[in-house]
C-alpha cells in the first residue's frame, strides 16, 4: 500500500472518480492550470482537460449555483471553495437550493454535488483563512457534512461523497494536507457517509471528535495510555451532519465519561448537538458532566502566533482535558 498524504489522498479520490465516471467534473477558482492553491487538483487539468477541470470566475455563489444546475442536469460536479471561509457568499445557494431541491420537488429533482473546502487553523491563516464553518450548515436537513480525519478516511469518504445522490459538503483540514500521511489501499475503498468510526477502544473515558482533532486525540490517548494507563474510547464522527446517533450513544454509554472536542468556537458548535444527543438518550449512563473542549468564543483565529496559539485546540490541551476527565 502506498503512503499518501491527506491531500494526495484527496487528489487520488477525485482522479479515480473522474476516471470511473465521465459525468464527474471539477469547478472552482484556480483549480485548472494552477492545480488549486493547495494543489488538491494537481495534475487533473492536464489529464482531463479544461472542460472537466473548470477554472471559474471569482464568484462563489456562481460556483455553487452553476454546480447545482449541472447536478440537476445529471452531471456530478465537485465544486472547490478556495477556503472554507469563502463559502459564505454561496450560503444561499447551498441552503436554499442544494439542501432543499429534492424535498421541494417531492423527489423529482436531485442535486448530487460535492462541495470541497479547506478549513481549520494553525497555519498562520488569520481570521479568514482558519475558520471552521461546519456549524453554519449543520442544521440543514438535505445536506450532509463530511470531515475526514486521515488520508485513508479522506480518500474513502470523498469517493463516497462524489457518489452520493445528494449534496455533500466536504471540509478538509488544510493543516492536515501535508501533516498527515498514511498507507492508503490502492483498491477501491468507499467509506459510508453517516457512520462514525471507532478509532480506538477503551474503558476509562470516551472522546468524540472529528477532523484533524482526531489525530491529536489519538496521539494524546496513546500518551495517556503510556504514561497513566488510561484507556480512551475514541470516536471519529466523520459525518458531522446528520450525526450518527447510535454510535455516539454507544460510545458515551461505554465509559460514562465523555469529552467532546472541536477546533471551532464552542457555543453552537457540532459538539453541542453531540452533547444534546447524549443528554437526551443516555443521561443515566453518565458518571461525569459532558465536557467540551473547543476554541474560545471569539470571532476567529488571529494571525499573530501568540494569539493563534492561545486560540487553537492542540494535542497538549486535549491531553490535559482527557486527563482531567479520567481523574474526575
Amino acid at each position, binding site marked *: 500500500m502506498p503512503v499518501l498524504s491527506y491531500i494526495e489522498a484527496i487528489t487520488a479520490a477525485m482522479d479515480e472518480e473522474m476516471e470511473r465516471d465521465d459525468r464527474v467534473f471539477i469547478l472552482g477558482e484556480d483549480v485548472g492550470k494552477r492545480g488549486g492553491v493547495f494543489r488538491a487538483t494537481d495534475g487533473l487539468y492536464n489529464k482531463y482537460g479544461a472542460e472537466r477541470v473548470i477554472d471559474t*470566475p471569482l464568484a462563489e455563489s456562481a460556483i455553487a*449555483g452553476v454546480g447545482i444546475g449541472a447536478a440537476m*442536469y445529471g*452531471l456530478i460536479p465537485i465544486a472547490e471553495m478556495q477556503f472554507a471561509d469563502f463559502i459564505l457568499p454561496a450560503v444561499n445557494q447551498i441552503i436554499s437550493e442544494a439542501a432543499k431541491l429534492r424535498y*421541494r420537488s*417531492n*423527489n423529482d429533482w436531485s442535486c448530487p454535488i460535492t462541495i470541497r473546502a479547506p478549513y481549520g487553523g494553525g497555519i498562520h491563516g488569520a481570521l479568514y483563512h482558519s475558520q471552521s464553518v461546519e456549524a453554519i450548515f449543520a442544521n440543514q436537513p438535505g445536506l450532509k457534512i463530511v470531515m475526514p480525519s486521515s488520508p485513508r478516511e479522506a480518500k474513502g469518504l470523498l469517493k463516497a461523497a462524489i457518489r452520493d*445522490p445528494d449534496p455533500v459538503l466536504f471540509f478538509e483540514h488544510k493543516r492536515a494536507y501535508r501533516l498527515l500521511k498514511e498507507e492508503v489501499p490502492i483498491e477501491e475503498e468507499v467509506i459510508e457517509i453517516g457512520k462514525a468510526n471507532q478509532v480506538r477502544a477503551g474503558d476509562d473515558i470516551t472522546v468524540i471528535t472529528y477532523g484533524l482533532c482526531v489525530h491529536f486525540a489519538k496521539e494524546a490517548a496513546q500518551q495517556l495510555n503510556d504514561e497513566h494507563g488510561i484507556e480512551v474510547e475514541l470516536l471519529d464522527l466523520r459525518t458531522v451532519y446528520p450525526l450518527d446517533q447510535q454510535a455516539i450513544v454507544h460510545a458515551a454509554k461505554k465509559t460514562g465519561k465523555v469529552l467532546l472536542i472541536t477546533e471551532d468556537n464552542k457555543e453552537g458548535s457540532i459538539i453541542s448537538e453531540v452533547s444534546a444527543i447524549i443528554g437526551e438518550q443516555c443521561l443515566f449512563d453518565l458518571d461525569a458532566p459532558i465536557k467540551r473542549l473547543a476554541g474560545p468564543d471569539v470571532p476567529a483565529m488571529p494571525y499573530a502566533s501568540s494569539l493563534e496559539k492561545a486560540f487553537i485546540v492542540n494535542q497538549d490541551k486535549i491531553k490535559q482535558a482527557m486527563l482531567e476527565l479520567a481523574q474526575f
Partner: protein
Amino acid sequence: MTKHKEIGLSDQAVVDMYRIALTARRLDERMWLLNRAGKIPFLVSCQGQEVQQVAAAFALERGKDYTAPYYRDVGVVLALGMSVQDLMLQAYAKAEDPNSGGRQMPGHFGSKKLKMLSGSSPVTTQVPHAVGIGLACKMRGEDAISFVTLGEGSTNQGDFHEGANFAAVHKLPVIIMVENNQYAISISLKQQVACEKISDRAVGYGMVGETVDGNDPFAVYQAIKTASQRARNGEGPSLVEAISYRLTPHSSDDDDLTYRTAEEVREAKAKDGLLSFKKYLKENNLLSDKKEEELEAAIKKEIDLANEYAEAAPSPDPDTLYQGVYQ
C-alpha cells in the same frame, strides 16, 4: 405577408399562442376568485405578462430545451406542457401537484419530465442553475439550450451578475429573459436601477442584450428565436428584456394602491398585450367572434373541471412529511 408568417410562425401556431395566453389569464382570474373566497391561501399573478411568456416559450424547442421559469410564468409553463389541472392542484396544495406535491406555494414550478427546473422562493437563484444546465449541455455536446426568466427587480441580486458573467465567459447556450413589469412589489423601476434599460447590463458581460415590447408576441418570439440560434451556434448567452406591466397587485397579500395610482393601472390595462394580440388575430381572420366565444367557453370549462378535480383531490398524507429529504 402577415407579421407572424414573416417570422416563421404558422397560423395554427399563433392561434395556439393566443389560446394559451388567454388560458393563463383566465386561470389567473379564477385564482383571484378562489383566493377571495377563501379556497386557496395565496396566489402570485401573471396578468399583463402572459403574451411575452407564451411567445418566448414558443421560440424554444419544447421537449428538448431546458427552462427555469419564475413564479409569474403561468404562460411559460402552460406552453411547455403543464396543464390547467396541474396548476389547480398546485393552488390547492394537493398531493398530486406535479410541481412539489403540495409542498411549495403556487408559482413554484418544476417538472423533470418537462425539463423544467424546480424553483424556490428566494429570487434569482435560478439564474446560476440555468447556467449550470447550459454548461452541462455544452459539456455533453447536447444541442439543447437553457432558458431562464426573472423580474427586473431581481436583476439586482448578486446571483444575476455571477450567473450571467459565468455564462458569458464560458459562452454557454443560455437565454436570460427579464420580465420587466415596472415594479418589484412596491418598488418602481427607477428605485431599482439607474440604467436606461435592463438589457444595458449585457454590455458588462460581453453578451448580446436586447429590449423588446413584451406586449408584442412577435417581437418577443423573434428575440428569443434569434437568441436561441446564437446559443445553438455556440455564440453564447443573450439577455432579453421584455417590457410589460404588472396589471394586478404583486400577490394576493398585496395592496398596490398604497404605492401606485388606479389611473396608472388603468392606462396600462389599455395597452394589455392580450387585447392587441386578439385584435391582430381578428384583423388577420384567425379569430372570429364566434371562435372567440367557443375558445372562452372551452377555457372556462377546462378551468371548471380542473377546479373541481383539484378541490376534491386528496391532500398530502402527513406521513409523507418525512419523505424526500435524502434519497
